[in-house]
């Protein structure tokens, strides 16, 4: 699985939607059940999967699929 596919799968699993729905427009603004519970789960799974540790600002900014790609790239994980 490519890094991008892994990231898509994490999002799809966390929000219980199909992988086709995970596009750049997938964000806390457009998803109903995006709250602190799902966000914590999302961040924790990303950290565990890619073996990175996000800093506070990055966790707070982790609010959309496009932003997520940008953030993990900063940690050397290139989707």
């Amino acid at each position: 699985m490519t890094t991008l596919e892994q990231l898509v799968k994490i999002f799809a699993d966390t929000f219980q939607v199909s992988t086709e729905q995970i596009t750049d427009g997938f964000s806390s603004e457009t998803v109903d059940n995006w709250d602190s519970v799902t966000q914590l789960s999302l961040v924790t799974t990303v950290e565990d999967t890619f073996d990175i540790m996000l800093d506070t600002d990055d966790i707070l900014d982790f609010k959309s699929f496009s932003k997520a790609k940008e953030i993990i790239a900063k940690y050397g994980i290139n989707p």
Partner: protein
Amino acid sequence: MVLNINQVNSEATAIIDDEGKALTYGQLCHYVELIGTQIPTRSVVFVLSKNIPGSVAALLGCLNCGAVPLLIGSETDADLVDSLLQLYRPQYILQPTDLPNRHHLEKKAEFLGFDIFATGEVPYPIYRDLALLLPTSGSTGSPKLVRHSLNNIEANAKNVAEGLSISLKDRPLLILPMHYTMGLSIICSHLVVGATIVMTEKTLTDRALWKVFEEQKITSLTGVPFSFEILNKLRFFRNDFPYLNLISQGGGKLSQELFSTIVTYASERGKRFVATYGQTEATARMSYLPAEKAAEKICSIGLPFPNGTFAILDENGNETITGEATGELVFKGPNVTLGYAKSIEDLTLGDENNGILFTGDIAMRDGDGYYFIVGRKSRFLKLYGIRVGLDDVENLVKSNFPLDCACTGNDDKMLVYITDSTYEEKVKQMILSKTGLFHQAIEVIVKDEITRSQAGKVIYSQQ
């Protein structure tokens, strides 16, 4: 006036909202009186609350004029609200103006972002001391409510303010929803001393919340175990917040590791960490672990708040109040509520508890008299800080599907056993949509049959 809010300097700020808009004690009193002119005493009122100042005015307005509010979250599933409406037939509904008027009710008035609707229902008899109703398991729409008196609310407010040394200089950040008993306790225990409450609808993972935290010079933060997991993830405990003085926790048991992390943070940064214990049935809080004992008594629920006492029931059902012991925890105090209501008729019931609460929790008392929760007799879980009645979920499943069902689990995950694999996904989706729980908090398991005793009772330990 209720909680003596008219005794506070009327120019002092009572509540600040997410936009930084302030409501003074004088203004709060004005709205409390205004609500009293719209709603007759002894009415039953549904208050659909969210964390905005109008919700506090709605609550206090009802309490002050002798109407009885039932507080439920404004985001509660509409079907669940409707089933409560049918059951309790309130004469009035107070709800945020952005919610739809689904039943085309007559609008009586507006205040602070709230509409007052008259339902046209006929008033019915209720017990003279009944003042407030809170759901036991809000998210499942269970009809089981906890009946509070005004004395319960005022005793909780004063005893908690005294125990936690809350002063009028305090500026707590209210993140917990106010329709949760702990959220309500934060509001009442601060208003009673004239402090300023900062209310937010934002969550800990919103950047905007941290802006409010800094700008409003927050002095105290209260959370449930899950809040502290998020704070830990956000590396909160590596930062200094110069105005923060008190960190308090309730709503379940912290892990030892997290408890120790907070203790260390508090002692290094000169802040107080106070763990508390409570239940809706005792108007939120029963005990607290004094900050200076936190390092020594890790994960203890401490000692009762002023005017309360604890006892432990031994195997023979005798109460013990000193010495090492383990057994069911019993609490006595003026904040023990009147009892439950499951129907409209139950609202006529008097005080069934007489100040004594059998908590359903198993506690251990150490040689120094400090209490620790070690288990639970009662059939509920605390999932991400939300209390979920296992019997309520079973009933939800059985009433929506032709299935036998048994629910068990722990505070990490609820296990829902059913007997037909074709319903597996449907059951899960129904529970998720009704309760708003996170999907990883629920696992639906299909088995041939639910294990029962010869008497037909579900054997939960053998599913």
